[in-house]
């Protein structure tokens, strides 16, 4: 059986095969701001109480602190609900981005079935969970019943071999895969990332991979637990867990063997995430703004990679560099380690932990004609502001190098 089959078989209480539609019991249900929408539907459904308060995690990250009165009202309605239902796992706006905070706080364990009202819920696959994004209304049904219908996905396996040359990282790998597969190349599939490249990746890098697996259509992305997973979970949870992996003879629809030796830093051109080219083919494009952050690349090693490029140097006045730590834990680490001070000395603006400008709500929107290079996950038209602006996606090292040069730049050259 595949990993996806095993998790969904356990959750539905019967042997699940690709294509089956099962009713699955949910282990963890996450919502951010759109919990306001969830609770509206929840009240309409008429359930007296949520099915299991322990299994619901709520926080705010998209618009924090509230950027409009309407956003504040949304926050308020969720806070009132949390109080009246006495939900124990609520982090308000203090902790940062859901996809960073849930793993940090030990909510995510290998083998779990997790749903979240956010498309990048696939991130939790980095710890070996089956994790996928759903809508607000179906989350209301989950709150009421603890169950959700799901189609058991087929599996694509990416066997990634070779060795990445510094400063090429997980972001470059996943952008490369998205470019090869296309924005719908893995539609409805569970994507498994295996092989020496993945084994050598930190949990942080694996989160980047699983996070953006959804940008090629994946229902879930997963990397399987190992010693790094054990180390990450140590001290974060006291709960027992058993790794779930695909069997050797599992029914995998397709295996993609890719040797990544010599892979260049990758950049996704506007206005689609699969419009990917190696950085050397697009250096020299001027940028107005550079953003380092998001659930894709706002972690400690991402900030560190940027700082290593920028260390002791100053970005030009023509560029706005916005750094958004993914969580309070990351923020404190960056503060204590001196990384934050160094980035600020280089000319960065550092915001509170959260989604930042990624989804175009606040904290750095773009005017018509402006260009931004960002470590975020989407470059759709109008994503970060004006529909006449452009967003380029890249790794923290490439974004930092580009901020320094005022134009899209190859981090290998800027570092040398």
């Amino acid at each position, binding site marked *: 059986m595949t990993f996806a089959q095993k998790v969904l078989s356990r959750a539905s209480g019967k042997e699940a095969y690709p294509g089956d539609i099962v009713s699955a019991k949910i282990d963890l249900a996450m919502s951010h701001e759109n919990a306001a929408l969830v609770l509206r539907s929840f009240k309409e459904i008429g359930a007296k109480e949520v099915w299991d308060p322990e299994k619901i995690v709520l926080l705010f990250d998209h618009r924090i602190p509230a950027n409009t009165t309407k956003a504040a009202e949304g926050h308020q309605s969720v806070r009132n609900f949390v109080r009246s239902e006495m939900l124990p796992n609520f982090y308000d706006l203090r902790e940062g981005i859901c996809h960073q905070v849930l793993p940090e706080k030990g909510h995510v364990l290998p083998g779990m079935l997790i749903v979240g009202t956010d*498309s990048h819920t696939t991130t939790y696959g980095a710890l070996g969970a089956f994790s996928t994004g759903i809508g607000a209304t179906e989350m209301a049904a989950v709150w009421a019943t603890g169950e959700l219908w799901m189609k058991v996905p087929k599996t694509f396996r990416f066997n990634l071999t070779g060795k990445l040359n510094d400063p090429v990282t997980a972001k470059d790998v996943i952008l490369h895969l998205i470019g090869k597969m296309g924005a*719908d190349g893995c539609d409805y599939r569970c994507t498994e990332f295996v092989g020496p490249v993945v084994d050598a990746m930190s949990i942080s890098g694996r989160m980047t991979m699983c996070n953006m697996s959804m940008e090629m*259509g994946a*229902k879930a992305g997963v990397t399987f637990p190992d010693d790094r997973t054990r180390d990450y979970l140590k001290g974060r949870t006291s709960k027992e867990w058993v790794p779930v992996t695909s069997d050797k003879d599992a029914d995998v629809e397709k295996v993609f063997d890719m040797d990544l030796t010599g892979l260049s830093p990758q950049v996704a051109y506007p206005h689609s995430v699969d419009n990917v080219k190696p950085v050397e083919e697009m250096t020299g494009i001027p940028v107005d703004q550079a953003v380092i952050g998001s659930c894709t690349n706002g972690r400690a090693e991402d900030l560190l990679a940027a700082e290593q490029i920028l260390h002791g140097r100053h970005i030009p006045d023509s560029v706005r560099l916005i750094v958004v730590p993914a969580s309070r834990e990351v923020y404190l680490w960056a503060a204590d380690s001196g990384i934050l001070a160094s980035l600020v000395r280089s000319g960065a603006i550092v915001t509170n932990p959260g989604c930042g400008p990624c989804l*175009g709500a606040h904290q750095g929107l773009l005017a018509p004609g402006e260009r931004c290079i960002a470590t975020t996950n*989407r470059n759709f038209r109008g994503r970060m502001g004006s529909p006449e602006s452009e967003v380029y996606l890249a790794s923290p090292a490439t974004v930092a190098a580009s901020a320094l040069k005022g134009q899209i730049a190859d981090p290998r050259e800027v570092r040398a």
Partner: protein
Amino acid sequence: MKGKVWKYGDHVNTDVIIPGRYLDDYDFKNMAKHAMEDLDPRFAKDVSYGDIIVAGRNFGCGSSREQAPLALKHAGVGAVVAISFARIFYRNAINIGLPVIEFDATGMFEKGDVALINMEKGVIINETSGRTSRFEPLPGFLLEILKEGGLVPHSAKRFH
């Protein structure tokens, strides 16, 4: 259902269906005024109740925002017919009661043609040209959710 056709290409994403800047407004009628704004500014102004969107591959890719199908529904859209859908959009559409049909109708419709669709029978007709095609109807339990107006009324039965 019957309506005039709006035609779009591949990978129509949730950010152009309803841009992030409007997501703080939970009044869906207001929000619907901005439906498709970044892709087709005429859409929200000219769309009529029951109109049908015909599109290419991977319709609704991107974010999990349920406001995407909600914006289309509240703008008056009666159904979306696309070669393929992104999975969360597809689920959301059914859950909020917006019919979605996975079928390549791009060759049989021009913008402004009148489409007639029978969800149960799996028949789609271009009344303007007279062409008729068949598609695989949705599984019974999804049709039932749609008929009841979405997952909320469907689930409410369990609690009332």
